[in-house]
């Protein structure tokens, strides 16, 4: 039986990890919400952003966090382009199914290009503050993990404020909830959907930079992320951002706790167990998720 302090340490680490999961799952939820797109390439963009942060740091020595000023707008634009140029070409009747294939291939392309340009070598950013940590009620927490969590939390908060209080956010939520009705109110739903997709990809830029701070990266790493993320949005209820956040926190914490008793690989199965249980017991998801019932 692990000691109480070790359990507490795991809970803290789980919360920190859950924050990153929550941000990334929010992105996935946006794609599905605005376009019924299952975005397999989300985590590939995550790793791409991490590589860009690592590369910029290696070449120029700048803090990886500064790459956000480039990667966030870049990913937003890439998201808009991807939606307008690729996804709108899919036939509406089979969009969701075909989007899996299309974004799967995008993920393979990104992985291949990363391997080609940067080789398959494992990479890690070494920063002045990489090894520093602080005491938090007896738990030792790496500063970089705190920074990563802070970025994820800020980005999520920003997303929330944008969705809830901006004119664009109102139009985006209306488009998600009833596209034809939104159109009839004068909302340019195609343009809004493009921006929504860009916003989703921007979360991958933030997440990837946060990830690069304390994780060893390699081109195929994205496969370790997409499974848990997909599980999170199903458990949370497809299309529900708060649902995704709650599921991300819960499962992130469980994963972290299970690592005490089980190996890292086995701990990750908690996502798939949760996925199966959800599909068997409550297929529309546990938190919110009316959208899933409709589609």
């Amino acid at each position, binding site marked *: 039986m692990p000691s109480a302090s070790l359990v507490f340490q795991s809970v803290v680490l789980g919360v920190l990890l859950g924050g990153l999961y929550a941000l990334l799952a929010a992105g996935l939820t946006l794609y599905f919400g605005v376009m019924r797109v299952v975005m397999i390439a989300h985590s590939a963009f995550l790793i791409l952003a991490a590589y860009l942060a690592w590369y910029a740091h290696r070449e120029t020595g700048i803090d990886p966090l500064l790459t956000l000023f480039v990667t966030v707008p870049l990913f937003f634009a890439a998201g808009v382009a991807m939606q307008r140029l690729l996804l709108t070409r899919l036939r509406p009747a089979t969009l969701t199914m075909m989007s899996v294939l299309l974004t799967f291939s995008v993920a393979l392309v990104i992985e291949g290009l990363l391997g080609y340009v940067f080789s398959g070598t494992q990479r890690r950013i070494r920063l002045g503050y990489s090894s520093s940590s602080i005491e938090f009620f007896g738990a030792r927490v790496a500063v970089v993990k705190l920074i990563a969590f802070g970025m994820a939390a800020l980005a999520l908060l920003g997303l929330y404020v944008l969705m809830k209080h901006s004119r664009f956010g*109102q139009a985006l939520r209306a488009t998600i*909830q009833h596209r034809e*009705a939104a159109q009839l*109110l*004068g*909302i340019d739903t195609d343009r809004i959907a493009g921006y929504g997709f860009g916003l989703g990809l921007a979360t991958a830029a933030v997440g990837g930079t946060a990830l690069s701070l304390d994780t060893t990266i390699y081109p195929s790493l994205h496969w370790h992320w997409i499974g848990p993320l997909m599980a999170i949005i199903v458990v949370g209820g497809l299309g529900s951002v708060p649902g995704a956040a709650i599921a991300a926190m819960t499962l992130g914490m469980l994963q972290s706790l299970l690592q005490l008793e089980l190996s890292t690989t086995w701990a990750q199965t908690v996502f798939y167990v949760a996925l199966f249980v959800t599909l068997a017991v409550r297929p529309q998801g546990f938190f919110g998720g009316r959208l899933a019932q409709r589609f």
Partner: protein
Amino acid sequence: MSDADFPSELRSEFLLELDDIRAGYGRAALVLRGLTVRVPAGAIVCLVGPNGAGKSTVLKVASGLLTPRSGRILVDGEDVTGRGPQRMLAAGVAHVLQGHSVFREMTVAENVLLGGYTLRDKAVVAERVAFVRDLFPVVAERWTDLAGLLSGGQQKQVEFARSLMVSPRVVLLDEPSMGLDPKATGVVFEQIVRMRDAGTAVLLVEQNARRALEAADTGCVLDLGRVHVAGPAHELLADPQLGELYLGGRPVRR
């Protein structure tokens, strides 16, 4: 009776005119085959007819969701054929869809304010909000509630309020009584009459033909994509043959 029986001296007063419209979906056969409907200012015009007659399609053409293959659409005499929903809305045509079309996970307030999405002037928005809250008391009462939590009839009224934010000249209502119990249906029809009395013309599509014609000024009976009969609603209601064919059984004997 036929389309030609619309009194010609009133022609300039038609707010919305669909003239000899042919329309359909994709490569499938035409749904509307030379349909003509005219909506005068300050009137409720009701389209009735069997399933598949093309009633909803008429509204989709009028709001720009569906571009007709041929024919003309006039709003207040101006040719607006081929415009999309945004520009139709700007011309003064608002469309309330069939079934539930509130944004369920947003509050009543957010729904209504989105109705004014295209309005830039905050003073106008405030004035319209006051107007619709006054016209639909339930909207004012449930202002901060999630729209999805309202009853079917209340949601319909939120949709009406949302559509009136831009001060449309014509409102298109697609089966507003669908799925409502008789009491809620009564309230919704009362509200439709109030909308007309407040100065908005209404083009109404209904399964519940008898109830709709009682509220309407003019009725049009659609069949096979054309207007079969058009005339004052009370005359249609009194016509025994129409009652038999289209209004679900015999008319009330007097």
